[in-house]
């Protein structure tokens, strides 16, 4: 591959991609220059695939053929668009029309009415894009997208991740050429350092510094590795990037290999992500075929290749030394640091390990320059951050925002607020290592420092929204259950500490604790923080400490009054049927999963408390408000 050949492929594809990125009027002009009248994009990310996007693509192919317009319309299966709760998602360009929750029947209509006759199927649109006067907002101008700044996600939902030429069409692999052609390894490291980007895996260590350490470490053999072992339950940024833009990772790792002097790379990815693994494999094969991996890349004398290693379901393997131990084929137990991986990592050699999202920014930093990147964000946190927005929020999905955006903007504007008229209570960031930010701090700008100040952390990017129905004691107990499960057992403070902490929380949730137990938690937590071997144990108490700090009254209600204000902790609850209100419709009895409700038609029913599992099905089924939770 030469630079001329690369440029030719780019020119061939860039117009097609511009149609998907420009505003509607300019996109229409651009579309006329391409061989396709319209393009139809279908999300093929895990979220939409789970809601049936494969059937949509099949139906689309069939219907286009049936209508005889398969040569005028380009069908593109992309990665994640971000709005996972509305899947399967279909978008038509150049208009940017956004169809949500599409069914195979809907596809037939979209092909017939929209693609063939040019009439938008208004009733199938995402409702936020349709106005009363009949006008339609293009996708890019919806609240969800307007506030976002997509850098790491720039190609997700835009290109076909299994087609390397589409990636090249977005100036892909040009940064790699630039580096190999005209930069020294020192200059590459300096550029990354100057951009101010910090590790997106959670800890926030300056990425450029890591590159320099690895470059300067003595040794002939070095490795470049990518941490795609996204363990935080409820976070799916890395998966979406691998599914939507795998070449960005390959290009960045190759750039890194030149900068630090490595010839072999590893991507350690969760086996639970089959779609991501498949797309990455396809991308690796294509990159080799086009000469972006292998011997003498671009004829500049640099050799590099990448191998995929599958994780096997261990949260601790997201910790860097444990991850490397796992690639070596052992139990994924962490090792003491120092020596850091940059000095003594994989197979005892200097190793550069970065997270997926960090890599996703690199090619653009090289191509557009460090100052472009550092112009975004806050004083100490540059650039953007991707969050997986989940829990009690209208627009569940993937968002990328400039650092410094407030929590309020994310939740109320991008996220569309809390559904069902409930009140926002807290946002959890950092997963099992992070903490909860209460509603009163909703105007906090999001960056590494301000989150840490509130007792939480940036983490890898899970952002779980909770409303008034979530109990904070229950949430911390949930996280501790997780860390008890996932503690590798190598060091005592973590192995025993997590279990003891869980027992104390369990006591509180059952109303059996005393105020002394809160002090005990505090002591234990501080011991774990100071003496655990790795970040898993050191940060395991965070969810508990932050909720005690921010929601102390809720803990005290459990302890002193024996009640759970949010109505979650089962031992403190009872379900009853109010005889006066019960009409005897039998609906609750029929739906009770454990047959704990007795009664005859048109007579008040009764709950047998010894059988009741407190699942709440009866409450949600009762049309008369006769079931109450006390």
């Amino acid at each position, binding site marked *: 591959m030469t630079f001329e050949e690369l440029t030719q492929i780019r020119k061939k594809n860039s117009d097609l991609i511009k149609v998907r990125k420009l505003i509607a009027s300019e996109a229409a002009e651009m579309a006329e220059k391409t061989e396709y009248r319209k393009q139809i994009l279908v999300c093929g990310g895990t979220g939409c695939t789970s809601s049936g996007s494969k059937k949509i693509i099949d139906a689309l192919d069939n219907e286009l053929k049936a209508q005889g317009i398969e040569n005028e319309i380009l069908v593109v299966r992309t990665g994640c668009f971000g709005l996972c709760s509305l899947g399967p998602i279909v978008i038509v360009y150049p208009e940017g029309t956004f169809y949500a929750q599409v069914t195979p029947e809907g596809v037939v209509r979209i092909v017939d009415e929209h693609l063939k006759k040019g009439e938008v199927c208004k009733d199938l649109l995402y409702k936020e894009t349709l106005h009363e006067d009949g006008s339609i907002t293009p996708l890019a101008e919806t609240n969800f997208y307007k506030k976002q700044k997509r850098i790491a996600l720039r190609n997700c939902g835009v290109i076909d991740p299994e087609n390397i030429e589409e990636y090249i069409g977005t100036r892909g692999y040009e940064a790699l050429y630039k580096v190999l052609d005209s930069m020294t390894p020192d200059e590459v490291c300096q550029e990354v350092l100057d951009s101010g980007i910090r590790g997106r895996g959670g800890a926030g260590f300056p990425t450029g510094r890591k590159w320099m350490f690895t470059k300067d470490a003595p040794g002939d053999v070095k490795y470049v590795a990518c941490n795609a072992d996204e363990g935080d339950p409820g976070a799916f940024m890395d998966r979406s990037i691998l599914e939507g833009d795998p070449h960005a990772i390959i290009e960045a790792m190759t750039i890194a290999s030149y900068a630090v002097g490595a010839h072999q790379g590893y991507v350690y990815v969760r086996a639970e992500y089959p779609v991501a693994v498949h797309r990455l494999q396809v991308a690796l094969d294509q990159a080799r075929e086009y000469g972006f991996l292998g011997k003498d890349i671009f004829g500049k004398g640099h050799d590099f290749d990448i191998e995929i290693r599958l994780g096997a379901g261990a949260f601790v393997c997201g910790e860097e030394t444990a991850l490397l131990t796992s690639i070596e084929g052992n139990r994924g137990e962490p090792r003491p640091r120092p020596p850091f991986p940059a000095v003594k990592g994989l197979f005892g050699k200097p190793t550069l390990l970065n997270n997926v999202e960090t890599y996703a920014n690199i090619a653009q930093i090289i191509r557009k320059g460090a100052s472009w990147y550092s112009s975004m964000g806050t004083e100490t946190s540059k650039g953007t951050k991707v969050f997986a927005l*989940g829990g009690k929020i209208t627009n569940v999905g993937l968002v990328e925002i400039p650092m410094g955006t407030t929590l309020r903007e994310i939740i109320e504007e991008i996220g569309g607020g809390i559904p069902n008229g409930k009140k926002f209570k807290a946002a959890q960031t950092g997963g099992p290592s992070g903490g909860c930010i209460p509603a009163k701090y909703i105007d906090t700008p999001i960056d590494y420092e301000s989150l840490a100040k509130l007792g939480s952390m940036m983490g890898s990017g899970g952002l779980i929204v909770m409303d008034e129905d979530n109990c904070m004691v229950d*949430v911390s107990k949930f996280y501790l259950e*997780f860390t008890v499960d996932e503690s590798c057992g190598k060091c005592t403070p973590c192995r025993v500490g997590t279990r003891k902490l869980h027992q104390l929380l369990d006591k509180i949730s059952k109303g059996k604790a005393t105020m002394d137990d809160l002090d005990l938690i505090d002591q234990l937590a501080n011991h774990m923080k100071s003496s655990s071997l790795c970040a898993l144990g050191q940060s395991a108490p965070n969810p508990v400490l932050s909720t005690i700090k921010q929601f102390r009254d809720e803990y005290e209600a459990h302890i002193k009054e024996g009640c759970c204000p949010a109505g979650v902790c089962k031992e403190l609850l009872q379900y009853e049927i109010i005889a006066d209100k019960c009409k005897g419709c039998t609906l609750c009895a029929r739906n009770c999963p454990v047959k704990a409700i007795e009664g005859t038609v048109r007579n008040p029913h009764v709950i047998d408390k010894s059988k009741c599992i407190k699942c709440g099905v009866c409450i949600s089924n009762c049309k008369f408000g006769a079931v109450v939770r006390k």
Partner: protein
Amino acid sequence: MSEQNQVPFKGTEVQEKQLQEVIAKHRGQPGGLMPTLQEAQGIYGYLPIEVQRMIADGLGVSLSEVFGVATFYSQFSLTPKGEHVCSVCLGTACYVKGSDKVLEALEQKLGIKAGEVTADGKFSIESCRCVGACGLAPVMTIGEEVYGKLTPDQISGIIDSYMNEKGGE
């Protein structure tokens, strides 16, 4: 260890041949034990002690090392799974939307706990941490099929559909 010995090992010669090919491919490769175990589980569905022994002999590592790795990672199973593996997501996004109640309803329906298999070998229950379909929370998967936006009262009908389908064959 005593539990798994109750299930007699029923590996075939074809499976063993496949396993030996996998072992040959990874022998001598740095860090080759994990991929070998992953592919072996793909062949047998689980990793009984007999298979671990063959891997240890084939790769030239000790059985204790193989056992140590196989028991460390939650993906590896030392006991066979059900014909239909029902996996309820207990990731945070699903949990705050009530997936624990979905799991309870499933355990009630099948009469087994998470990690167990029904007596007829048809169903087993697992809990998992995030399948990445957080937009559909709470989520359960049965085999490749994903069920999203679940409520506990839907479980019975879903399981029945698998029971009937099996009965009809």
